[in-house]
């Protein structure tokens, strides 16, 4: 394994043919990638369309896409961006120039090496203050219809205006963002590559949003060992992991009722009855939908790559998968403060899982890890800001991920 890694590192010099700086010392002439990221086919109209083995299951038309079972089609995907838009989005995503004081990028809280989360209980923005909620993973957001823990945004574009313009997160303004980007010649050039039909010479906000959404939508993780099992190769999982799958989908644990395959979320909001030990109660989706029955309701997160995104829950309360799972077996409403009257989801009950079953569940959830399509971190950013962590991490971890 060591030998492989060394060879990979030696090989990096010749790897980057996409987004390579032709004259890096002058920071000019950056050319955006003209091929699609892994998982996407380039069409004749220069669009990247997702291709997945799960699309083979669309032919049966038997089941509602995306809502459970092993061989179920995926929900409708957001794809069709051009390679150039995706690549531009990649630069923007990693570039701290987007923030008010140029210290925080999207990738600060959505780090590729941490399952596109940040390993913190709750995230920290430019103000260095802990924020209200944990950073959700971005894997497979191309399939999601609701964003934020409280489901308050319907599109990625709408979502990203939250952190961008929040004073505590990225702390910029629309005016400042446009001024900054339009002041960087390289970005002006890249935007005209990504949007060849653009009417104005200036960069506009919708182009920024679209490019970042394009990049985020390219983060596909559907090649885990679980997927190999689902597609019919039953040797892909160990005996313990299959037992874990059976606990997962059993009606005792009921995990699969809300964390429905193939995405391992049913994209609903649910009240599971978590307390907030060190702070005031988070009303969750109740505020968004103006509905008190949704007090304490949060979006069901996908479990894909969950092994990489500890700590868990909207407030990052649980260090390990086993801790999070244990919450569900301690009884319906066991944490709910006396002052709260919550409409806890009916699947939350007291399953009485044994510690063995909890460890089986954790074993199974770990089979949902797949980073084989992890994108490369840009070597150099158009803003000229230097990334602390320059080395492409994708190659190393995708090799170590192979079983």
């Amino acid at each position, binding site marked *: 394994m060591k030998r492989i890694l060394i060879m990979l590192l030696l090989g990096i010099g010749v*790897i980057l043919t996409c987004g390579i700086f032709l004259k890096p010392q002058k920071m000019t002439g950056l050319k955006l990638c003209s091929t699609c990221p892994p998982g996407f086919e380039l069409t004749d109209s220069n669009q990247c369309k997702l291709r997945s083995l799960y699309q083979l299951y669309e032919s049966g038309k038997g089941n509602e896409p995306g809502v459970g079972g092993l061989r179920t089609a995926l929900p409708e995907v957001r794809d069709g961006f051009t390679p150039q838009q995706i690549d531009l989005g990649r630069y923007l995503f990693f570039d701290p120039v987007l923030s008010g004081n140029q210290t925080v990028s999207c990738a600060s809280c959505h780090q590729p090496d941490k399952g596109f989360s940040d390993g913190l209980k709750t995230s920290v923005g430019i103000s260095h203050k802990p924020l209200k909620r944990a950073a959700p993973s971005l894997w497979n957001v191309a399939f999601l219809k609701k964003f934020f823990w409280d489901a308050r945004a319907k599109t990625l574009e709408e979502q990203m205006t939250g952190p961008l313009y929040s004073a505590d997160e990225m702390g910029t303004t629309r005016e400042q963002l446009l001024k900054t980007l339009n002041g960087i010649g390289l970005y002006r050039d890249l935007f005209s590559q990504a949007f060849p039909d653009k009417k104005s010479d200036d960069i506009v906000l919708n182009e920024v949003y679209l490019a970042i959404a394009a990049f985020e939508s390219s983060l596909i993780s559907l090649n885990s060992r679980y997927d190999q099992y689902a597609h019919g190769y039953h040797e892909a999982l160990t005996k313990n992991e299959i037992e874990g799958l059976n606990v997962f989908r059993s*009606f005792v644990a009921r995990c699969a009722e809300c964390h429905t395959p193939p995405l391992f979320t049913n994209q609903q909001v649910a009240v599971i009855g978590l307390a907030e030990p060190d702070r005031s109660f988070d009303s969750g989706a109740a505020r968004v939908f103006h509905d008190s029955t949704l007090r304490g309701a949060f979006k069901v997160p996908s479990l894909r790559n969950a092994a990489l995104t500890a700590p868990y829950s909207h407030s990052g309360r649980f260090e390990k998968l086993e801790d999070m799972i244990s919450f569900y077996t301690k009884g319906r409403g066991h944490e709910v403060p006396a002052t709260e009257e919550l409409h806890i989801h009916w699947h939350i009950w007291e399953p009485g899982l044994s510690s063995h079953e909890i460890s089986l569940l954790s074993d199974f959830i770990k089979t949902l890890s797949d980073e084989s399509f992890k994108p490369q971190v840009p070597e150099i950013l158009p803003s000229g800001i230097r990334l602390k962590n320059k080395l492409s991490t994708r190659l190393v971890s995708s090799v170590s991920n192979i079983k």
Partner: protein
Amino acid sequence: MKLFLKVVVALVLFGGGIYLGKVFFGRSKNIPAPVPSYFNGDGASASDSAAMGAGTVTGKIFEIKPGHSIQAAVGQANPGDLIRIYPGVYHETVYIDKDNISLQGVIENGEWPILDGEKKMNDAILYSGNGTLIENIKITNYKGNGIMGQAGNNYVIRNNWIVDTGVYGIFPQFGKNGLVERNILTGIEDAAIYIGMCDNVDVRFNEVYGNVAGIEIENSRHALVEYNYTHNNTGGILAFLTPGLPIKTCFDVIIRNNYVLNNNTKNFGAVGSTVSHIPKGTGVLIMAADDVTIENNIIMGNENSGITITDYTNAGVNHANDPESEPNADRITLLDNFMDKNGSDPIDEIKLLMKMKLSKKGLDIIAVGGGEGSCILNPDRYVTFGVDKYLTCKASDTHAVKTYLLAKPVAPRQTTVAEKGKMTYYGVCSGCHAYNTRLVGPPVVMVQAVYKSNPKGIVDFITNPVHKREDYPEMPPQNYLSPETRQAVAEYMLSITK
């Protein structure tokens, strides 16, 4: 039930108004109710299991006797195989993640094969494959479900005997085209037969007794519930649209020709479950479901009421709301039914309604909450509350609907080989092999140069890779792809041009 009480009091006042209105103006008999589209009966015909794609044995037959493992046989079985289980006791969880597997119990001299979870195991049988047949098995003492399907289509579950298997007895979920017939179920703490988020299902000739709910159709479409004997449950037959689930509709349900008798068992549902809110003595309960027809049932001796129709708010269920879920029971069609001796010991809220109506006879039918387009035939045959606003049904029967099973099975989940090659290349291989740029492995153009018109060479290599290129890492074997898929992807890789 607090909420229920509040709303019922409001309804009593409102209902009183309607009652007076009826006295003065009479029933609006001449306005025809909308006729649900299924009364046209566009060519549906009864199917047997073979026509459904289940139980067609084309392969091997496994004979399983006590001491053998059923799961071991499932592991070896291929689509089209039959696993016969002989009398005796088996302690296992059987899971079927393959298509067209049949499990058939063999009953000899009245001795059944018994799956016994000893109150330690979660589920008896889990399946996700299409064309699953499960018959003639006695299942008991599990904690979760007797039989649970997840997205398996064309399923047949029949002639099983299910006693105390925890939450649900028979629970197909996300399945299309299924038949649940001639099963006997008792001692289930939620629904004995629970059709959840399914389409096109017939539930017939089953006996369900001593459960919290007998038969529940939830967030499902095109369900026919007929010739069942549901007695001594807390509630007999239910059709629900439950909020907070990914499927947001429940419609086109026919409940006909069933016996719904004496469903007066004390509710022993788990705290927080939907069915834990059902009052004992509930015959038929419709909550927020649409286009439900109730016809020719014998509904007797249910102490709360014979038929209850409610919107979501009045149901007294304590779930969070769902903005995407329409809460009213619309277009309910109550055709002729035989109803008697219902409502003799109802919950307090209903007692109040009876006082309002100065009725000493219990209620056969109670309709509360919002909803539109509902109708009833011959309402004077029953003691009713809240159906005064119902129109007179235009339809008199559902004879045109013989079955809701599909005329042809749902197609298998397979596509052309070319598509398989493409999906596999982009879905799996492209993580390491781009067309003409280097990722982890050599680019496709380099592979094409070596193997030109030799896809088999690629198949052999990816099945058993050897380390060829010093400057690239060794490729892991791709034997998790089926041989057919490996061939397809090899051919596809040789064909691509960008």
